[in-house]
C-alpha cells in the first residue's frame, strides 16, 4: 500500500506542473518549453531559501521566479517575434546558469533544514507524517485549482482563453493580446516553479537536473487526464482533469515498476511514446475515419 500513497503524494506535487502545462498547451494553445527551466528555477529558489531558514518565503519566491521566467519567454514571443518553441528553449537554456548560481552548486541537501510543513509535523505523532504531507499537498493543489477556476471566469481570464481560441477576434475586441499571452505564460510558469519548489522541500534535496524532460511529463498528465474525463472539457473540469491525470501518471508508473514491466531508466522513453501516440490520434483519425478511437480525439479532430 505504501507505493499507492507515495504515488498519490508525488502526483499531487507534480499537479501544479500539469496545471501550468494545461494553461499554455490547452488554454493558450502555445507549446511552451520554458517548463524544464522554470521547474528547476522553482527548485533552486525554494532550495536555497529553505537552506537559509525561510521555507515559506522560498515557495512564494519560487512562484515569482517562475512567473518571471514565463514573462521572459512571453517577451521573446511577442515583442521579439521569436517562434514560441525557440523562445521557450532560449529561456530554459539560459535558466540553467541562473539556477546553478542560485543553488550555489549542482545540488544541496535540505534534510536538516526546516521545511514549510515541519512545524505542523512536529505537532503530531510521527505516524502522522505522511498524513500531514498529504494534507499540505492537497491544500496547495486545491487552492491553486480554485484560484485558477475563479480567475478564468473573470473578464480578463475570459480574454486569455479567447486569445488561445481566436486571437484576431480578441484583438478586434480591443484587448491587448500581448498582455494576455504574457499573463498566461507568467501564471503557467509560476505554477510549474511552485511544483518544483514544493517537491524540493518534500524530498529534502534540491537538484539542478530534476527538470529535464518534464514538459513531456506535464503533457502526459494533461492527456491522461483528458482520456479519463472523456475528452476535452470545459475549463474548470479541464483543470481538475489535469490534476487527476498527474496522479494517474504516477500511479501507472509505480504500478509498472512494481510488477517489473519496466525499470526506472525506461520511464522517459515510455512517457514520450505515450504522449506521441496520443497527440497523433486526431491526425490518424482523419486519415482513417472508420477507425474507432477514444472520444477526446474525435472532438478535436
Amino acid at each position, binding site marked *: 500500500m505504501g507505493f499507492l500513497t507515495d504515488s498519490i503524494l508525488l502526483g499531487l506535487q507534480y499537479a501544479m506542473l500539469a496545471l501550468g502545462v494545461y494553461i499554455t498547451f490547452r488554454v493558450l494553445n502555445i507549446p511552451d518549453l520554458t517548463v524544464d527551466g522554470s521547474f528547476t528555477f522553482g527548485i533552486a529558489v525554494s532550495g536555497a531559501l529553505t537552506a537559509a531558514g525561510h521555507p515559506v518565503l522560498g515557495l512564494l519566491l519560487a512562484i515569482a521566479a517562475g512567473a518571471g521566467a514565463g514573462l521572459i519567454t512571453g517577451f521573446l514571443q511577442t515583442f521579439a517575434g521569436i517562434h514560441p518553441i525557440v523562445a521557450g528553449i532560449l529561456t530554459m537554456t539560459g535558466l540553467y546558469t541562473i539556477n546553478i548560481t542560485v543553488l550555489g552548486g549542482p545540488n544541496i541537501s535540505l534534510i536538516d533544514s526546516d521545511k514549510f510543513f515541519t512545524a505542523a509535523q512536529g505537532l503530531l505523532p510521527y505516524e502522522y507524517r505522511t498524513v500531514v504531507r498529504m494534507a499540505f499537498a492537497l491544500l496547495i493543489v486545491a487552492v491553486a485549482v480554485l484560484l485558477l477556476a475563479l480567475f478564468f471566469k473573470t473578464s480578463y481570464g475570459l480574454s486569455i*482563453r479567447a486569445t488561445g481560441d481566436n486571437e484576431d477576434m480578441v484583438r478586434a475586441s480591443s484587448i491587448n493580446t500581448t498582455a494576455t499571452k504574457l499573463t498566461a505564460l507568467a501564471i503557467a510558469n509560476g505554477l510549474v516553479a511552485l511544483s518544483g519548489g514544493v517537491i524540493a522541500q518534500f524530498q529534502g534535496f534540491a537538484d539542478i537536473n530534476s527538470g529535464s524532460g518534464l514538459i513531456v511529463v506535464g503533457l502526459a498528465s494533461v492527456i491522461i487526464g483528458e482520456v479519463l474525463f472523456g475528452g476535452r472539457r470545459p475549463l474548470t473540469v479541464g483543470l481538475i482533469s489535469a490534476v487527476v491525470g498527474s496522479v494517474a501518471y504516477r500511479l501507472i508508473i509505480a504500478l509498472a515498476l512494481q510488477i517489473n514491466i519496466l525499470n526506472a531508466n525506461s520511464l522517459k522513453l515510455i512517457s514520450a511514446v505515450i504522449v506521441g501516440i496520443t497527440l497523433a490520434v486526431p491526425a490518424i483519425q482523419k486519415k482513417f475515419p472508420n477507425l474507432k478511437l477514444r472520444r477526446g480525439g474525435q472532438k478535436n479532430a
Partner: protein
Amino acid sequence: MLEITGLQKTFLKGTPNEHHALQNLSLTLPDGQFVTIIGSNGAGKSTLFNAIAGSFSCDAGQIVLDGRNITRMPEYRRARTISRIFQNPLMGTAPNLTIEENLALSYARSTKKLFSRAVTRKDTDYFRSLLAPLGMGLEDRMKTRIGLLSGGQRQAVTLLMCTMVPPRLLLLDEHTAALDPVTAEKILKLTAKIVAEHRITTMMITHNIKDALQLGDRTIMLEQGRIVLDLSGEQRAQMDVAGLLQLYRRESGKELDNDRMLLTGE
C-alpha cells in the same frame, strides 16, 4: 464623423510586384451615415478597411475619427471605437467559448472591470433579450460552444457582439457573402435594423449592386485604390443596376469588366 485624407498604401514596395492598393484616397463620413462600397476584385476595398481598422500602417495620409487622429494608433486600441465583421463567419467568434462567454467578451470592453465575474446572472438575462429577436432559438443555448453553430448563426452572434456596445464606426466586409441567400437576407435585415436603431456610422462592402443601392444612404465605387463613383441623395434614389453600369461607362470610358458584380447585381 470619419475623415480620411490622402491615404496611400503600397504593397511590396520596391519589388517587381509593387502594388498601389490605395492611391491618395480621401473620404468623409458624417455621423450616422451608412455607406455601401462596391468595386471589382482587388479594387482595394478590404485594404481600405484594414487601413481604417489599423491592421497595418499607411505610407501617407491621415485618418481622423470623431476629431481624434488615429492614424498611428495600434489596432487593438482602435477597436474600442471601431467594430469590424468579415466574410468568414469563423473569424468573429471564439469557437471553444460558449455563446454567453463570447457575448460577455464584447460586453466587457466598455462596461466591466477586468477582474470581476465575466458572466453574471444579470448579463445572461440581457444577452437572452438580445438573442431572442433573431428568431434562431439561440437564447435557449447560452451554454453551447459557438463552434457548434452554423455559419449564419455565428455571423448573427458576431453582429450582436460588434454592436451591443455601439461602436463609433462599423465596418462590414462582405459579411453575408458566405451565407445561403435566405440567411444572408436575414442578416442584412438585422444589420439595417441595428444600424438604424443606434444610428451607427457604417461602411459595408458588397458585391451585390442591388443591395448596395437599396441599403444605407450613400454608395461609393472603388477602382484601383481610388473612389471612382460617389452617389447619394436624389441621384442614388433614381439609380438602378443598369443605370449604374451606364454611369460607370460614361465616367471612365470603359466597360465594367467585373463578372462578379454583374452576376450578383441583377
